[in-house]
């Protein structure tokens, strides 16, 4: 579900980054305030654990393929929502920077889609009420599966919204949403069962882990209304901001205009200056429009190739 930079527009990425950084700051404050001083090193090691666990695949029965977990609900059950969000966020940052898994610009989107949806929404609103204090195994299993499905479906919904609002894909929103939610329903079941398997094991061998370290303050099961209001607020802010971006962002607008009118020769660059020059050129040039596009592409390719050659020569010399 890691979104790449190629799939978002700067506006959408900016709004998502603003929301997730705010939530990061809030989570950091909550963790700082907690009296549990063992939490910081535990979060560090748990992040590394999730990172490693994500790379161990399990076989999916009957299909021959394999899957892995994201770990949001698992972290929530062990650390509580705030610390879980910070931990999952740190894993996503490492994946983005070292493995280029998910873009830097799209990091805000990824934090929302994979972190917030599972740790700050699905965990407190679905897992906690179902699983309760962890006394009954079947409640943990049911909670893990239900919360994983809800978390991943919300994530899939956000991925669709972000990609569509960015104007990158030509796939209509309805089809895209259908595709994403149906895929992620099954991924959610897998994630849920795997999460339940780990939690079941922990409950059997070190049950204290399921109750000892969590900080629940502010997002506990009894805090439905407050949490719902917060997320409603975020949704409204997001909606307004997206609408504002859609109306003020020239490239997105250009894209939708060209889609509506079917015209393909709208000026490519957004800048007004370039627009005027291009139109003057169009009226004076005898060459058809498509040839001018080719010359741009070929010209750029030549420049890039030249720069590469020069750089390669320079660095070889440098090394010798």
């Amino acid at each position: 579900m890691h979104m790449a930079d190629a799939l978002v527009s700067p506006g959408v990425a900016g709004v998502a980054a603003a929301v997730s950084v705010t939530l990061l700051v809030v989570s950091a404050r909550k963790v700082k305030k907690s009296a549990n001083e063992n939490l910081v090193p535990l979060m560090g090691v748990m992040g590394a654990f999730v990172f490693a666990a994500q790379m161990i695949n399990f076989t999916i029965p009957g299909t021959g393929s394999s899957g892995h977990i994201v770990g949001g609900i698992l972290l929530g059950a062990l650390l509580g929502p705030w610390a879980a969000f910070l931990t999952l966020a740190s894993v996503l940052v490492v994946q983005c920077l070292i493995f280029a898994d998910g873009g830097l610009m799209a990091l805000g989107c990824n934090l929302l889609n994979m972190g917030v949806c599972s740790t700050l929404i699905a965990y407190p609103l679905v897992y906690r009420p179902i699983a309760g204090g962890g006394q009954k195994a079947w409640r943990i299993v049911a909670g893990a599966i239900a919360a994983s499905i809800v978390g991943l479906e919300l994530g899939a919904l956000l991925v669709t919204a972000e990609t569509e609002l960015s104007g990158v894909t030509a796939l209509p929103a309805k089809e895209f949403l259908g595709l994403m939610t149906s895929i992620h329903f099954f991924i959610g079941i897998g994630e849920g069962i795997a999460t339940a398997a780990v939690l079941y094991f922990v409950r059997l061998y070190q049950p204290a882990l399921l109750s000892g370290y969590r900080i629940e303050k502010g997002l506990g099961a009894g805090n439905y209304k407050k949490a719902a209001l917060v997320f409603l607020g975020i949704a409204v802010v997001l909606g307004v901001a997206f609408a504002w971006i859609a109306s003020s962002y020239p490239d997105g607008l250009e894209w939708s205009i060209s889609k509506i009118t079917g015209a393909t020769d709208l000026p490519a660059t957004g800048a007004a200056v370039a627009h005027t020059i291009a139109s003057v050129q169009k009226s004076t040039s005898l060459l058809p429009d498509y040839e001018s596009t080719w010359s741009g592409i070929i010209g750029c390719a030549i420049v890039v190739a030249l720069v590469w050659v020069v750089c390669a020569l320079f660095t070889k010399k440098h090394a010798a």
Partner: protein
Amino acid sequence: MTALEKALTEFKEVEHAAQGKSLLHSVDARAKTVVVFLYIIAVLSVGLDALQGILLFWVFPIVGCAMGGISYGEVLKKSLYTLPFIAFIGVFNPLFQREPELYVGSVAISRGWVEFVSILVRGLLSVQMVLVLIMTTGFYRVCRGLGKMKMPAVFTTQLLLVYRYIYVLVEEAIDMDRARKSRSYGRKGYSLKMWGTFVGQLLIRTVNRAQRIHLAMLSRGFSGGLPSMGSMRWRLSDTVFVAAGVLLFAACRLLDVNLIFNHMRI
């Protein structure tokens, strides 16, 4: 479980590259982070149908590699691994946008294919720049830079701890996997039940380790934040670096390459 071993190698490669010395290595981490952000914004703001507008931006990762003394081929190879997911989303554009956009002789290339290539190029370029950033800066200094830019200390400490423990835990997981393989007589893969036990076991080991580490840290004077190694000072050259980045990206963004190369009769 080659995925774990591969990840470990990748970490070590990045760390090794980041310890080099070059012009780009000496630039402040904050300056580089800001410039990479601006670059990605500039690239993403180019319209999808303007392939020629994006291509010029390809120059920057190449120059960045040369300035940082790292191999561009290596960066290109790493960025190619990220293509499949981008391609999965982008591949729908050719299906829905069928109007002709370019011609090769008499063969028309549809708008959707141009957009598809644009999406791939956007993906490659943004990934390449992030790789140049991390390979000339290192994870530690990027985090320190984020901390200096007012990211909460709890989070930057968390990032550094995770980064440090990943080595330890991935090695532990590799050991456990090797032990399991040597006892399982050729059985491949983890069934869900066994996976739960395996990962649960890793988790309990992890938590026990965290407790030992915490005690060790406390006895060495840990008080919630990690001490900084070396100073981070913003110099005039860093300001120049950011200013140059802004100017170059703006120039590339506003330039009408069609017009220029048309005049050169390419």
